């Protein structure tokens, strides 16, 4: 079999390009909204006294935009790119691909209009009103048909590990979304869920936690298994580890939702399952980290010059860190302190900015030169982006850790009489304001980094001659070591 090349005419790369452009664009929008939210917490008048700019309406827009618009489009771009090559097959049906793309973008536009308008179901990461929920389900099924159709007509016998992870996303997100969206409409925009009270809380966080698991984790692991060996030109460290950590992850992840509702009126036994399965998730998660980092063995020398590898190393490291932090925060005693504080915000951003974002950037820098058949315009700009993003994340996460632990400790602090030391809630809020400014700086750096990337990628795509000279341009080796059969 001849070596695969990036420009095999057979593949539908047009749809990949569209998803990629959408991801970068919506990423800029979603992160800008995040920066505005951060500013509003440090300086409330930033909402300009406009109802649709208030924090309560913008924060869902931020979370939905970065999860479903930035990450969603990124995953689809990487998935369409890699699965066609891994299966040596053009996508099953080009019309379905187009319906998927335009349908998904329409949903995002609808979200961007309805959320600031205050049309919301108030379920975290599932705020969108019921008609949009139905549209999401339909488009997801369209994507699933295309996905499984491509698998059915594939020209290779075995499915590579990346495909397993993509499949777990396609199946699980469908189940989560449909169950969590079971509502009875009262009007075109208002609806009430079939679940209520503590049962509703459990369903919400079964969804919420696993949306993180199967949208922000497993598909990114899947594409890591494609893009890391490609970028580094190294074989995957251990096939056996792939098998074990994949099944460990998909089986254990789904149980961990109740760690979001510890010390609630959820029955103790259900809370315990959330604690125990979260702790058990550590090893399967780290299996992914190990396979990622150990695949880079022997490519460390390239790390100095190749920004793509830098992005991957930081992404995988943050994945390892946040999958250690997560189980720790699920332990009852730690959760008692961390829950309801900014520690959680820090945790989710070390995963979102550190893992998802950095993996996305590495993937974009890999795909754009290949898709547009040009060399990356500026390696220096990519390196600048790397440092802006990395320092931005560190500032963000450190500020939120400090804020979270400070507030958690102040809430429970007792005076000599056994009464609350800080009975006025404002006491704790005022302590956090300086940290909110630091978070704003970190988040802004991350956004600026993204804009630098966007500029660099536009230059690359438009075929401007590389600025830093062809020698330094990073391009993954097209051919990998031939197997010793």
């Amino acid at each position, binding site marked *: 079999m001849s070596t695969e090349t990036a420009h095999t005419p057979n593949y539908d790369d047009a749809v990949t390009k569209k998803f990629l452009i959408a991801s970068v664009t919506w990423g800029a929008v979603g992160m800008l909204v995040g920066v505005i939210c951060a500013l509003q917490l440090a300086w409330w008048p930033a909402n300009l006294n406009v109802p649709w700019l208030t924090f*309560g309406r913008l924060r869902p827009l931020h979370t939905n935009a970065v999860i479903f618009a930035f990450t969603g489009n990124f995953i689809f771009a990487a998935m369409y790119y890699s699965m066609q090559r891994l299966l040596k097959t053009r996508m099953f049906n080009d019309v379905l691909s187009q319906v998927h793309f335009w349908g998904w973008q329409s949903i995002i536009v609808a979200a961007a209009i309805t959320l600031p308008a205050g049309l919301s179901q108030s379920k975290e990461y599932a705020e969108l009103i019921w008609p949009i929920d139905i549209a999401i389900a339909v488009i997801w099924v369209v994507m699933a048909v295309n996905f499984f159709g491509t698998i059915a007509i594939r020209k290779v016998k075995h499915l590579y590990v990346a495909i397993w992870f993509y499949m777990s996303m396609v199946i699980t997100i469908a*189940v989560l979304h449909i169950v969590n969206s079971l509502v009875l409409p009262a009007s075109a925009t208002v609806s009430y869920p079939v679940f209520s009270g503590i049962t509703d809380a459990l369903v919400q966080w079964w969804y919420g936690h696993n949306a993180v698991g199967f949208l922000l984790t497993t598909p990114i692991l899947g594409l890591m298994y494609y893009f890391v060996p490609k970028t580094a030109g190294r074989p995957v460290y251990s096939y056996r580890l792939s098998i074990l950590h994949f099944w460990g992850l998909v089986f254990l992840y789904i149980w961990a939702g109740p760690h979001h509702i510890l010390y609630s009126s959820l029955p103790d036994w259900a809370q315990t399952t959330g604690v125990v399965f979260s702790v058990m998730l550590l090893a399967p998660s780290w299996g992914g980290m190990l396979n990622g980092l150990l695949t880079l063995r022997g490519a460390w020398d390239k790390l100095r010059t190749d920004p793509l590898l830098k992005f991957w190393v930081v992404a995988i490291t943050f994945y390892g860190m946040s999958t250690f932090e997560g189980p720790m925060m699920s332990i009852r005693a730690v959760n008692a302190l961390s829950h309801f504080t900014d520690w959680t915000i820090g945790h989710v951003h070390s995963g979102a900015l550190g893992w998802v974002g950095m993996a996305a950037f590495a993937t974009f820098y890999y795909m754009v030169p290949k898709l547009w058949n040009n060399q990356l315009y500026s390696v220096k700009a990519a390196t600048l982006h790397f440092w802006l993003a990395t320092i931005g994340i560190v500032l963000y996460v450190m500020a939120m850790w400090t804020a979270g632990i400070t507030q958690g400790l102040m809430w429970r602090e007792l005076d000599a009489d056994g009464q609350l030391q800080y009975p006025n809630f404002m006491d704790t809020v005022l302590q956090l304001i300086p940290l909110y400014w630091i978070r704003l700086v970190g988040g802004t750096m991350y956004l600026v980094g993204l804009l630098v990337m966007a500029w660099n990628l536009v230059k690359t795509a438009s075929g401007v001659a590389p600025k830093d000279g062809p020698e330094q341009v990073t391009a993954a080796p097209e051919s990998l070591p031939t197997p010793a059969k």
Partner: protein
Amino acid sequence: MADSMHRKLIESKGAVMAVLTTVAISIGGLVEIAPLYSEALGPEPMEGIEPLTPLELAGRDIYVREGCYNCHSQMVRPFRDETLRYGEWTRAGEIVYDRPFQMGSRRIGPDLQRVGGKYPDAWHYEHMDDPRATSPGSIMPRYSWLKERQIDPEAVQASMRALQTLGTPYTDEQIADAPAAIQRQGGEIVARLEAGNLSAQPDDQIVALTAYLQQLGVAGRKAIQAQKDAAAALEAGTEIPASVED
């Protein structure tokens, strides 16, 4: 070797992989969620827990619309510092009619599950108009437009009908009476606001939101106190013969 079995039996068959994945991701959710629907484990409403009145329901829809849950939780945890600060911890039996449960995940502001009755109506009015008037240094946005907009009684009736279908015990009479009930309950709040030289209409959004906030955790607190009293009475009753035996 397990690896080669996996390769032969699973990786080569997309359908097998899909079925096994579906099974793997279904078990956890089923084991955790399904038992809450059994009679023994599912939460029952506590004594005196009633569905929201039409005005309170309208207020709750405003709470949802403005995304209050993004900064305010509604779940007091069973820790002494939390019960000192907020009041009794939140029981499953007092939130059975909450769809969706407004638990929240972050306390940028304080928990609100037991805020009902903690402040006078006028406090909420002033606080929504400008949070810094009542809480110096607050970072909460102003919600002054709630004073200028009114609720739609027909929308409230549609909401009540949907909730009734889902099992919330609203009667048809209550639904038919909703517009009048809004005027009655809103009128009481307006009267209290006017006593403090504030003016409002019974169907103002700020009045509805105040009505919703003012009932939060109140019936639950009473139900919990009743349970405690009953338990104390029972204990007092059984302790005497026990000490006699000693």
